[in-house]
């Protein structure tokens, strides 16, 4: 797949693109995580987080494809930064070992600020009630209309609309 195809695929949350990225780059990420105090499960988590962060940065316009940046290097650096952040929380003095010279030679600015904010919100999302989580998931992730949500949740369309707003406000209160 070309970088452009991967970029478009990730933006569209396309399963084929994610499985392609997994098959192509999992070993590189695993190697980096394993050499830095991580195990297979850590590597699996970090790779998933890296893919979510890649999607966040593409969707928010933080990552724009260009000839200067290889998408694989960008993904590697995202995963690396997420792993650094995680191990620094656990062991503040630990240095990260380089494992992939090619990827590291293209040392680049990879912003995880947006992902960090989104990730914090994701954690707070779990604190909302089940009904709120379901409604928000249906509306924003599954792109269901309010009419369909009303049918699925056995409420009126107007209630669905109002509840969506209340759920957002609840999350905002949790975030503050």
């Amino acid at each position, binding site marked *: *797949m070309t970088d452009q195809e991967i970029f478009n*695929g990730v933006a569209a*949350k396309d*399963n*084929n*693109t*994610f*499985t*392609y990225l*997994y*098959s*192509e780059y999992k070993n590189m990420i695993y190697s980096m995580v394993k050499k830095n105090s991580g195990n*297979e*499960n850590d*590597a*699996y988590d970090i*790779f*998933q987080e890296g*893919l*979510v962060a890649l*999607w*966040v940065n593409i*969707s*928010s316009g933080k990552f724009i494809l260009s000839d200067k940046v290889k998408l694989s290097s960008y993904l590697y650096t995202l995963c690396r930064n997420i792993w650094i952040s995680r191990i620094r929380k656990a062991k503040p003095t630990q240095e990260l070992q380089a494992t992939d010279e090619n990827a590291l030679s293209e040392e680049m600015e990879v912003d995880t600020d*947006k992902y960090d*904010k*989104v*990730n914090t*919100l*994701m954690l707070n*999302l779990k604190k909302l009630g089940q009904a709120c989580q379901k409604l*928000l*998931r249906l*509306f*924003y*992730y*599954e792109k269901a209309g309010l009419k369909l949500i009303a049918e699925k949740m056995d409420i009126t369309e107007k209630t669905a*609309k*109002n509840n969506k*707003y209340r759920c*957002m*406000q609840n*999350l*905002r209160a949790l975030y503050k």
Partner: protein
Amino acid sequence: MKQEHLEKIEDYLKSNITLENLKLYAKKEGIEDLDMQIEWVENFTLAVEADGLKDQLKEILPQQVQPKTKVRRLYTLKYISGIAAASALMLFAYFGLQDSSDNNLYTQFEYQDPGLPVQMSATENYALFDALTYFGEENYSTTIEKLSAIEGEKSDTISYYLGASYYYEKDFANARKYLTQEILTKSTFADKAEWLTVLSYIKSDRDNPAMDLIQKIKEKPNHKFYSEAIKLENTIKK
């Protein structure tokens, strides 16, 4: 943030209205922290979507698999060796030596298929993608298990990798069952399938059918294993 403000900002983020129109609306409504509100709604929307994406990835990406098969095999061997009588061990060692001398003779002809670069976009078949990932990790018993479940789909890729997996698991009869299937004769896997079939005959001490197949390969100068076939024929004749 009022409900109407949220909806207006969502309209902007969906490109249903321009930033200029949103700013005009904000001015009219007396919203002073528009940028912060936009950022909040964007982050909130991304968080809900990212949460869904996380679950999506958990479903589609293969879970980490420990190499249980190999560990189990080693454990079994250890167990067997522990309980075997001395005479059985000697017999085992004798055949082991014989096997290793044969292996030395033919080692140079061995072909280790690394597997396809697994691209699900090309196959659009998750089960096949999953199986080929195991093949790439040299976990052949799991590859066999996974491919056997989708064997009915009649694909040259499935037949070849089932055959190759049986071959690497040293189940040569089953390897030939798949590697000699009609579907492979005009496939891109044809040359590799023929070569593994030759090797499987040799490892089953069946030199005659191996030689017959070598002759067929020698008739095709473009065959991927043409030169190996000639060398192997000479080795067998010695």
